[in-house]
């Protein structure tokens, strides 16, 4: 096993473990902290793939800015422990085996398939910052610009749902 591969498994285990504890934790702050672990582990995976820029953005934007906002909101709302209902217990007993089955199924399929040689975007080495910029601002400029409208919708929605009654 190469060090590269070992590092991959360590990071992957961290990401999956963080994601599981995010769901299991009953206090929102613990969930938020678990999410930070997931974000950082993902950034490590991007680094392993040679995508330095994406890894840096992942740390700065997600692990940094967005998580600060999450924690801030949780503190501001003073959110307490989650309550477990009968339905959520049922979802656990039925959902966990199904989720494990789906994950196993996917893993088996991916493990058995032959790797493909990438064409198009990936073949140009999308990992480097220059290639990424070319992809974002030339090839995929239309969905990129649409994303700004998507964010505008989200902002508008937050305003609509959170504003005070007149």
């Amino acid at each position, binding site marked *: 096993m190469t060090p590269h591969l070992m590092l991959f498994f360590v990071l992957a285990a961290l990401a999956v473990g963080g994601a599981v504890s995010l769901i299991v934790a009953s206090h929102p702050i613990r969930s938020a902290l678990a999410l930070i672990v997931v974000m950082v582990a993902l950034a490590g995976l991007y680094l392993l793939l040679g995508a330095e820029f994406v890894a840096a953005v992942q740390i700065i934007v997600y692990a940094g800015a967005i998580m600060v906002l999450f924690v801030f909101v949780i503190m501001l709302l003073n959110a307490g422990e989650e309550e477990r209902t009968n339905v959520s217990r049922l979802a656990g007993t039925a959902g966990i085996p199904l989720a494990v089955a789906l994950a196993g*199924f*996917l893993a088996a*399929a*991916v493990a*058995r*398939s032959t790797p*493909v*040689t*990438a*064409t*198009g*975007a*990936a*073949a140009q080495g999308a990992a480097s910052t220059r290639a990424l910029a070319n992809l974002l601002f*030339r*090839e*995929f*400029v*239309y*969905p990129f610009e*649409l*994303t700004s*409208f*998507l964010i*505008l*919708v*989200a902002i*508008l*929605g937050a*305003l*609509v*749902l959170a504003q005070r*009654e007149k």
Partner: protein
Amino acid sequence: MFPLREDFLRVLPELVFCAGGTLLMFLQPFVRSRQAFSSLALLASAAATLSAGFAALTPGTAFGGLIRADGFSFFFHLLIGLVVFLVVLGSSSYLERERLAPAEFYALVLFAAAGMGVLASAQELLTAFIGLEMSSISSYILAGYRRDAIKSSESAMKYFLLGSFATAFFLYGIALVYGKTGTTVLTQMGSADVSDTVLKLGLALILVGLGFKVAAAPFQVWTPDVYEGAPTPVTALFSAGPKAAAFALLLRIFVMVPAATQLWFWAFWLLAVLTMFTGNLGALVQSNVKRMLAYSSIAHAGYLLVAFAARSEIGVAAILFYLLAYALAKLGAFTVVGHLGGGGEKHLDLEDYAGLAQRQPFAAAALSVFLLSLLGLPVTAGFFGKFYIFKAALHSHLIWLAVLMGLNSVIGAYYYLRLIVVMYMREPREEAACAPFPAAVSMVLTICVLGTLYFGLFPNHVISFALSPGLFGR
């Protein structure tokens, strides 16, 4: 490859929708008149519908193959534009009655429409994903627009949680398909190895994600609660707009990607049967009219999936025509329900419709036309919709599907006719209120009735357009 003039022309409807939504947001702090906002939203949706014509005049791909303007996207742009126009027209009196802010509402409707437009013309999966999210996120917020009503919040919450879950499936599917084919452009997936398990899984996950959006069983669980809790004009939009757009993307993938054409057949067969029975059997036991119509819209998704399973050109034409007929009938029906619901949407029960024909003959007649169209009776558009689906199914030798669909139409007849009987045969209850219909709502109903009858008598224009060989720009 800097975007050219043609690139912008081919996405003009989306640009107009987005510009309209943004303009509404800008004007919101300065303008006080409700009238101004609804006029602006009407203008924007009319302009976007017309600009679909510009896009159709210069057919071809845009932005390096991410978007394709062809007959297919032209049809869906017209349909979405019409739906949005009618929803905006029919919702102004509702918003006033429920004291809801108009500018944000219309802006969200227009942004949702832009997302649906993207779905109708995208031929690349990432672009389609952004379109799907634009339409979905606007929808989640619109579902919870009546913030003082607990049902509306419940609707938004359920829609958001389950919708995000489905989106994750869709996205994972895209990732797997990309991993196997090395591309997200639909036209470049032709050479993919169909027998590969990863590709199968990817396509299956995409189908799950989109199946949720079109409310196909077993992914339909959210539909009754969301449709019932959302403000009724929003329910009207949900049942006609996003559903048609998601069907458009599903159809484009199904037709353009050979692997999907092969692999999805049995999935569609099974989904169609499940969806038809879940919808119709669920609708049978409802006493709430809004909820009954929600179940009926599940059933109609099932009929549409029958046409998918036919895998033929006549099947495609049947889908397009059915979506048009269905949109007109559902929009009209929900508009009536929204108005008769009264303040706070209290009068949604079957009993509240007793003797409607005596109190409000016009509304009762219009609602009957819509219900008969949903049922598929001759002289209404719904008849030819069902007729072409039957024809497509028989043409492809799907005898069993056709039989099951016929059986379901009979089940459906029970609850559609029951409502008509209640409206015409029962005596009205004395305390029933009798609010007159505002002019705008009457106009919406008139357009829907005329459209339903017109396409019920002359379906040929739409069908021959949908059968034309250049539908997908080939």
